[in-house]
């Protein structure tokens, strides 16, 4: 913690105010805003190409020459409802625990077997929850072993400075002034594309407006994933019928 050195005041009130300020860490005192906007190009998704929905892109700032942060002790939630993981994209600081409450009236599962941190919370009933602590930075692709259409991405980061773009693509982050590596993650962009978007920025005390970031979705392919045993999913139970052997 760094303390302000130059306190100079003629009145007691001003001195008290400055004394209060002195109790705050420098990172808060010198916080600056990094703002910008992301545009998605060459998308085959109607809501993106026509609706200009640029949400869901993760922007993270990694302080240069500073050790990675990984000591988060907080819980965040990824809800299972209406056979969907919500939110679909969830960036977290390494060390964070994610709770997976099941708000559907059916059983669910959550697992990741292939990248990032692997885990499997097993099959669990409605109204209950399971938790997993993510300790290593990486991209964790989450699926449900019963419902192949369900998927989500947990982006485990070694920095506390991250955000997800709004629908119009805008973002802003409050960070201490300094030098950072800006990185971009978008689930429908290739690794090469994302690498080319990384850049070093210097944030002054008056903040920084980042030039527009244009992310191409060229090369994005939809391919089915396997179940948690690495096999093809069984045909899903026919939920169009009330009971086994019934008719829709």
């Amino acid at each position, binding site marked *: 913690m760094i303390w302000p050195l130059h306190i100079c005041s003629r009145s007691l009130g001003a001195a008290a105010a400055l004394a209060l300020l002195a109790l705050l860490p420098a990172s808060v005192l010198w916080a600056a805003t990094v703002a910008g906007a992301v545009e998605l190009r*060459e998308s*085959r*998704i*109607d*809501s993106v190409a026509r609706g200009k929905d640029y949400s869901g892109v993760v922007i993270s700032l990694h302080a240069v020459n500073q050790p990675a942060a990984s000591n988060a002790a907080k819980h965040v939630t990824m809800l299972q409802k*209406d056979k969907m993981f919500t939110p679909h994209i969830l960036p977290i600081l390494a060390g964070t625990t994610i709770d997976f409450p099941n708000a*559907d*009236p*059916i*059983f669910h599962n959550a*697992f990741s*077997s*292939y*990248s*990032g*941190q*692997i*885990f*499997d919370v*097993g*099959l669990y*009933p*409605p109204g209950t929850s399971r938790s997993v602590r993510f300790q290593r930075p*990486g*991209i964790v*692709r989450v*699926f449900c072993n019963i419902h192949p259409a369900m*998927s989500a*991405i947990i982006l485990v980061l070694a920095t506390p400075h991250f955000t997800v773009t709004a629908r119009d693509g805008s973002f802003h982050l409050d960070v201490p002034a300094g030098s950072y590596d800006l990185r971009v993650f*978008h*689930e*429908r*962009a*290739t*690794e090469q*594309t*994302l690498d080319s978007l990384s850049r070093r920025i210097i944030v002054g005390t008056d903040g920084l407006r980042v030039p527009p970031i244009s992310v*191409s979705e*060229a*090369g*994005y*392919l*939809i*391919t*089915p*994933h*396997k179940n*948690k*045993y690495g096999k093809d999913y*069984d*045909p899903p139970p026919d939920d169009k019928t*009330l*009971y*086994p*052997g*019934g*008719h*829709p």
Partner: protein
Amino acid sequence: MRILFVAAFISASPILRAQSNTDSALQAVIERLDRLEKQNRELLTEVQELRRQLGGPAQSASADASPPAGSSPPPPAERLDVQESRTEELAQTKVGTSQRMPVSLTGMVLFNAFHNGGFGGGTEVPASAQLAKSSDASGATFRQTVIGLTFNGPDLPGGGKASGNAYFDFWGGSAAPSNNLFRVRTATLDLAWKNTTISAGQDKPIVSPREPTSLAEVGLAPLVGAGNLWDWQPQLRIEQRYSFRNSDPNGNETGLKLQAGIFETSEVYSSTAPAALSGTLEKQRPAYEARLLFYRGIPGKRRVEIAPGVHASTTHVAGQSVDSRLGTLDWLIQPANRISLTGAFFQGTDDSGLGGLRQGFTLLSSGAAIPVHAAGGWSQLAVTLAPRLSLHIFGGEESDRPSDLTPNSVRRNLVYAANAMYKLAPNVIAALETSQTRTDYILSGTRINNHYDLALAYLF
């Protein structure tokens, strides 16, 4: 001073021109780079698509399960923890089969408590109001319990797969609790490839695959004799699928399914026909059926399905042939996640072989056999009021042409019903259903029967 300025301007002109030329050249280079970058991305897409088709790893950013390049593999301890938890999950008794193919046990234990009005005919689930009045009847039964076996595999040549199911209940025999016989309800053996499925089985007619949602009527289909052509009969069918928007990233799906096959009818000798000729009826006849389903699915569980169909068979009775010809239409309209409208309609002649009103032909006093013209259908509105609570309102009727009928035949059978279902647990459903059946008899008037049913189902 002015001379100096002019001289300076003249001397600077070539530099400005050169600057202008440089800018335009730079712009051209940038544009060319943009074009090359675009071409590069298109080529990358093609390469990935080719790799995918060849079965190789697709270096894409899609939601597949391939690990990103450069990511370190999970530590062995982490992997071991996951495997141990999965082994524990699998530590349960399995159904073993002699062929070592996985078979799953499924079904529903169903308890029904019911009350019928005086025209129920003493049956548990009356299809029509009876002509003669009797006393009200109440009771309870487990006869509608369903037990099923499903299997998935093995693989077939050409990338296909064999799968299927068989479902049984205890609706055979009589209503006496000690005389409920185990019987096959429906069964299917599917040989499926990417766009084609060949099925052999016992199921509803190809032209009438839908029905209302009910736990009161399971041993017989809901709306029997009131617009739902339901007979579960042996059949052989082929289905060809055409998808117009394959792998649409937006989740839209549009396509056609063409179904055609041979269906074995279940011919019924009308109770109003001369008993002496009942032995002349061929009990089963082949029917030829086809149905064309058009579907359009939109994200958010909105969906539209429309399917016209045709049925053709010939009933053999009293040494004569009676044509059974039906045109059908069924539909599903789901404008939102929680609301759906389903239904079916048919019109034609001699529908008794498919589960109609069981009076498909009339034997005239002259000895001639004529087909009974019939029209019918049903519709259901289903609303999910809450995640655990759903409401179903449905009704249907069959009307047969009076001029084709003899006295005491049914001219019209109308049933309307409503039920509320509540999920006590994901697999435990409680349902309350009420229905009214109004049956019009030629020369005998209308009979009305009320039916009430309380059901408790455990799905497994």
